[in-house]
């Protein structure tokens, strides 16, 4: 039996809603067949006779073993570091999180708000929000760069806005089935099993990317990297390998990837001209190029492909 406590701070509950869409396993199966005991969750807590304050205190005093602390939403520190903009069970939520994180075997941050602050932390960050162990790209966050849970791991970050239900359930099942040692984390504490490839991996427009064929809204075919700001080549996530709602992904429906599994989402902090628009130098050269390539080499190759394509472009599309 693995005890899971799921709390929400500066959250929209989008990760919970995403979690409820889980299929293999479903949330009910997670509880009935995988030994996950949800101590409490704002929407789907099984333990319905306990008073929440007592439950939290019992976890802190180790009367109840807290195996996994799941946190969704930003850590609200406002105003002036007091955290009173987010009360929970008679205290600032941040104070509960501090104490609970000290006793948790594993601490898991779900979604961009919990991992690196997310949208609430966009300047001017009115609620003084931060992530559990990062604020945007900077390590530290609320718990500090050196934080480790009882099992010796830093905060396991499952980013995304929201996180895909599979990313959440598989990590919970991984811990529950004794495979925590197989959870390898990257520099941003993301499980490599989901966040090594790029969103572009598996995108149906990858040929159009190679051949520099532009896509636009409301049009079939074409790559969204050049005009409408798709971040698929720079974003680590498995959106085109493990589909959303079992059906699709943003880039499969002509929706540019927003880069929501990378710290810094929303990128460029929503400054004028950065929304659904590829930022460019001199109106031609993309300011950001696919990860792992030098800008100059990319511009040369892309320009060459654009002017003198090596293959006949496959532009035909069909309804």
């Amino acid at each position: 039996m693995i005890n899971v406590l799921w709390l929400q701070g500066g959250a929209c509950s989008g990760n919970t809603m995403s979690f409820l869409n889980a299929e293999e396993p479903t949330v009910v199966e997670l509880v009935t067949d995988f030994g996950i005991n949800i101590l409490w969750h704002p929407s789907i807590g099984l333990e319905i006779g306990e008073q929440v304050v007592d439950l939290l205190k019992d976890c802190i005093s180790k009367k109840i073993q807290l195996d996994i602390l799941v946190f969704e939403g930003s850590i609200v520190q406002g105003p002036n570091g007091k955290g009173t903009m987010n009360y929970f069970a008679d205290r600032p939520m941040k104070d509960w999180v501090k104490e609970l994180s000290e006793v948790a075997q594993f601490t898991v941050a779900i979604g961009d708000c919990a991992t690196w602050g997310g949208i609430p932390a966009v300047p001017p960050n009115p609620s003084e929000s931060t992530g559990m162990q990062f604020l945007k790209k900077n390590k530290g966050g609320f718990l500090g760069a050196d934080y480790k849970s009882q099992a010796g791991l830093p905060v396991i970050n499952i980013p995304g806005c929201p996180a895909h239900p599979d990313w959440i359930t598989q990590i919970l099942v991984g811990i529950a089935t004794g495979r925590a040692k197989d959870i390898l984390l990257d520099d941003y504490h993301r499980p490599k099993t989901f966040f090594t490839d790029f969103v572009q991996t598996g995108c149906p427009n990858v040929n159009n990317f190679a051949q520099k064929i532009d896509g636009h809204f409301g049009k079939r075919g074409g790559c969204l990297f050049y005009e409408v700001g798709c971040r698929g080549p720079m974003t680590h996530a498995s959106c085109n390998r493990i589909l959303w709602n079992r059906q699709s992904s943003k880039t499969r429906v002509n929706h540019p990837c927003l880069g929501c599994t990378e710290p810094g989402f929303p990128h460029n902090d929503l400054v004028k001209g950065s929304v659904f628009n590829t930022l460019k130098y001199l109106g031609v050269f993309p300011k950001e190029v696919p990860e792992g390539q030098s800008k100059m080499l990319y511009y040369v190759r892309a320009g060459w492909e654009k002017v003198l394509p090596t293959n006949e472009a496959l532009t035909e599309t069909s309804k």
Partner: protein
Amino acid sequence: MESKELNISPVGRVEGDLDVKVYMEDGVVTRAHTQAAMFRGFEKIMQGKDPQSGLIVTPRICGICGGSHLYCASSALDTAWKTQLTPNALLLRAIGQATETIQSIPRWFYAIFATDMANKKFANKPLYQEVVKRFAAYVGTSFQKGVTASGRPVEVYALFGGQWPHSSYMVPGGVMCAPTLKDITRAYAIMNQFRNDWLEPVWLGCSIERYLQVKSWDDLMAWVDENDSQRNSDLGLFIRASLEFGLDTFGQGVGKYLAYGTYLHKDKYNNPTIEGRNEALISAGGFHDGENYHALDHMQIAEHVQHTWFEDHAPAHPWEEPIPTPVTNSTILTETDFDGKYSWSKSPRYMTHAAEAGPLARVIMASNPGNLDHQNRDPLFGDIMKEKGPSVFTRALARMHEAPRIYEYINEWLGQIDLDGEFYIKPEERDGKGWGATEAARGALAHWIEIKNGVIENYQVVAPTTWNVGPVDNEGQPGPIEAALEGTEIEDAHDPVEVGMVARSFDSCLVCTVHAHDAKDNKELARFKL
């Protein structure tokens, strides 16, 4: 502690905590205060940013109504930028809104509302055993069916939006997607499975066509008794048990209703304007003052902040309102002075009235005899309001009543998409003011935007939960949930499940901490999570 004896139900919460303070005298609620306990400052974040920021930012206000926020954000830009919308664009936006709403219906009923009916308070009622067998959390025979079925409609949302929650596929000028034949056929198939897995066999016990013949309270009673299949369906059981348990006797509310309406008709909103919106709606909007219908006019809305933890300003229409500046002395419920500021929610008012937003408001608008031919015309709740009046039961029935109709709409709209037509017409950015509105699953939602010098000057969001959970206004009028709680009889002060049922009948998106107080000595009797 006394709370140990409480039977606490799981409920949905979406955007932060709601605390409720209830004063009781001789077992009856005499006064109630609702306190929203979380602040993030989304409007402040958007100020000075790219005009399209709302398309990315506002869905993230609420993970359960993200598609509804997107519908508003794109519409607000449509009216500000004077875009053109093709029939396909309007259809695909309406399908997104409708699939999100129909998703929420079984998810809300089983995961949030019906588990309360399995509370021990009702243990001596004849139908209790059957209710527990079906509706108990996790183990109820209908619980998993309903929760699993709720994921299907948003698979259709994902076919056009890429994912649910949190897509941004609706943009000023149309939609991003350009679906193909297989997307349409697959959408039909998924919706058909939703009907076959849950809507007809589990919920209705009859065909959608048969159910939609119900036009009055008497018709509904006759429908329940027509055969075993209908009587024993989850809807049949819900109706019989609600009447047996007395859910039709409390939680009346303010008796005034506001709906913005939604689903803009594919051929009637191709040049979006605020003025042209009312007549383009398929699900009609309006204000009902308890006696008469009034055409919707968003200029009648003003937000009050005297009891909100924001710096004071006079009641103002959202276009004229300052972006909120939080005060720094918010307090926990037990230390709150309710004569002063006590919530992070504002108090929106329509023509100075507190108004209930939500499915009940929508079905009341559907009963308006003045609705146009292309609009939803459904007299049922006009009659139910006369025969039964508002209550926890009426509100929940209204929510559930929408599922068959929305199902029909989605199929109809899928059939109208023209795969040879356009989906997007690129607009020109310009400065100006805009307004976008819709009906989120839980009620009237609107965004007001002002763009100046190419960036957002002002952005104001008024959510259905703001209408329903807002605090007392500057004139001393309580908010709808505060009003609905007054007069409620609490059978067991240590387990005031009635308070929870009232709050949850509004589907207030929030987990509620109820602090029950005795009005005489102010002693705290019980405190628990709803």
